């Protein structure tokens, strides 16, 4: 059941918040030992929160809906581990701003989800908490860094989730897990109370079943927060109301180079999806945005230094406690000359101007979310067009350009290749989430890729759970 349908059922009294929580707790008990999506399940707390909702007449749009959070998002009294040993015992005293808003909307916090250690990598194979496994093929990665969020949605272990995205961390696991994810514009959602990676690019956003679900979640958590200096003070559109406008009349730029460079079967699935969107009335035009090749370098010039700066005290005092890959990545930041950051900052300013100008001619851009299928756990390389390529390098051109300019991007399930999900990326102008979600919703009204479920998530799996 999608989040939107569950929310409607709860508001209609067809089931109680406690029944909704109990349903997910049963599924977590049955399925999560395989998937390892959760780091912390708040079973008792979630049931108490569900019961407490009945003692108030307030009925927010997420009333009684069980939501799970990437374990970098603070929930008062529950550990925020960031899938790290360093923060394994860290228990925040206050809710993050997004959790405050979720609670105001009536949501119940079901638990905290696995991720790549400190959200600094795309594999979600934390040496401290174990890998999150892809529900479509448990020997494969979920992507990351919000891998537990993608896996929880795919295996139906939460009605919806929040992840975070610095350089693809919402889009990548959404793509690999067959979920719908939205990286909102930078500044659209508060980062207060969220463990940072690189503040220039970090953003919190939803991963759920459908674009409609993402619209509900985004509507609950978007908005200006005076407590976050990066927060944008701009009106929040009624995302849910704007969904039904359809794809007709939209002019969508298809980033042809990203199609040409992707795995041929992945590209074919995305091209078929684009044909569907054209049949819904959108105009498709080929486009070659500037700086696609340089965008990853520009983002990395800033990201490595910002990430290292945020960890400098732990690098001095607790270095052996990091996993090897994250330790190396953080150390890189201290060895880069300071001028690299300044060059990156200047290049980003120029890129903002050039890349944002692309949207003068189109409403959206479209491309594959990822050029490849998820590799097996333990493999760091993928084969791409006959060449062995590092997975972490293959993803950069598909994700960094949009992070660099702070654009909203949705990843929408659009096909299966070898039984594994493929994602279509829809990119909007800064603060253009409503248009992105509108196109994604139109596509999902005409297709059923978002309704496909891995065998592991079938009702049979739930029935196997001990009661």
């Amino acid at each position, binding site marked *: 059941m999608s989040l939107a349908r569950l929310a409607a059922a709860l508001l209609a009294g067809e089931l109680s918040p406690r029944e909704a929580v109990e349903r997910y707790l049963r599924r977590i008990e049955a399925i999560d030992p395989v998937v390892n999506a959760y780091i912390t399940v708040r079973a008792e707390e979630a049931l108490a929160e569900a019961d407490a909702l009945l003692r108030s007449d307030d009925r927010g749009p997420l009333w009684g809906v069980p939501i799970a959070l990437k374990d970098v998002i603070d929930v008062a009294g529950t550990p925020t581990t960031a899938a790290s040993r360093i923060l394994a015992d860290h228990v925040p005293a206050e809710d993050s701003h997004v959790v405050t808003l979720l609670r105001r909307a009536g949501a119940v916090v079901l638990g905290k989800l696995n991720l790549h250690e400190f959200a600094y990598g795309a594999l979600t194979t934390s040496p401290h908490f174990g890998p999150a496994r892809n529900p479509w093929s448990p020997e494969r990665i979920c992507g990351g860094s919000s891998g537990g969020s993608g896996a929880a949605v795919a295996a139906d272990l939460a009605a919806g989730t929040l992840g975070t995205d610095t350089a693809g961390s919402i889009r990548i696991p959404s793509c690999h897990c067959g979920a719908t994810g939205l990286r909102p514009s930078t500044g659209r959602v508060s980062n207060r109370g969220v463990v940072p990676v690189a503040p220039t690019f970090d953003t919190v956003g939803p991963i759920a079943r459908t674009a409609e679900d993402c619209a509900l979640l985004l509507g609950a958590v978007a908005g200006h927060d005076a407590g976050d200096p990066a927060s944008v003070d701009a009106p929040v559109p009624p995302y849910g109301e704007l969904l039904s406008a359809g794809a007709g009349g939209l002019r969508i730029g298809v980033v042809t180079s990203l199609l040409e460079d992707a795995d041929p079967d992945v590209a074919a699935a995305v091209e078929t999806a684009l044909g569907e969107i054209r049949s819904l009335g959108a105009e498709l035009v080929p486009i070659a945005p500037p700086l696609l090749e340089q965008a990853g370098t520009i983002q990395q010039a800033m990201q490595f230094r910002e990430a290292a700066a945020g960890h400098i005290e732990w690098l001095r005092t607790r*270095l052996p406690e990091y996993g*090897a890959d994250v330790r190396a990545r953080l*150390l890189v930041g201290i060895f880069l000359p300071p001028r690299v950051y300044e060059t990156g900052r200047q290049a980003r300013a120029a890129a903002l101007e050039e890349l944002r100008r692309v949207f003068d001619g189109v409403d959206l851009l479209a491309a594959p979310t990822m050029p490849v299928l998820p590799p097996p756990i333990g493999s760091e390389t993928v084969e791409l067009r006959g060449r062995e390529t590092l997975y972490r390098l293959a993803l950069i051109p598909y994700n960094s350009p949009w992070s660099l300019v702070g654009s909203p991007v949705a990843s929408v399930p659009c096909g299966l290749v070898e039984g594994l999900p493929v994602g279509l990326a829809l990119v909007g102008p800064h603060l253009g989430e409503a248009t992105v979600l509108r196109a994604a919703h139109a596509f999902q009204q005409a297709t059923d890729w978002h309704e496909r479920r891995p065998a592991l998530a079938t009702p049979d799996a739930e029935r196997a759970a001990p009661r």
Partner: protein
Amino acid sequence: MAAPPSPAELRRIAETQGIAPTDEDLEAVRAFLAVLLPAFEELERLVPPTPAGE
């Protein structure tokens, strides 16, 4: 800048920051830098450095 610094040079830089990486850490860092430094050098050619004082 394009070639990664030697492990000894990296260790010296780390020590100035109060950080004590292992030899394995430094080899992993050098693998990253071998890819990153040429790309950053290319970027610097595209974006001339701002003169001091600006």
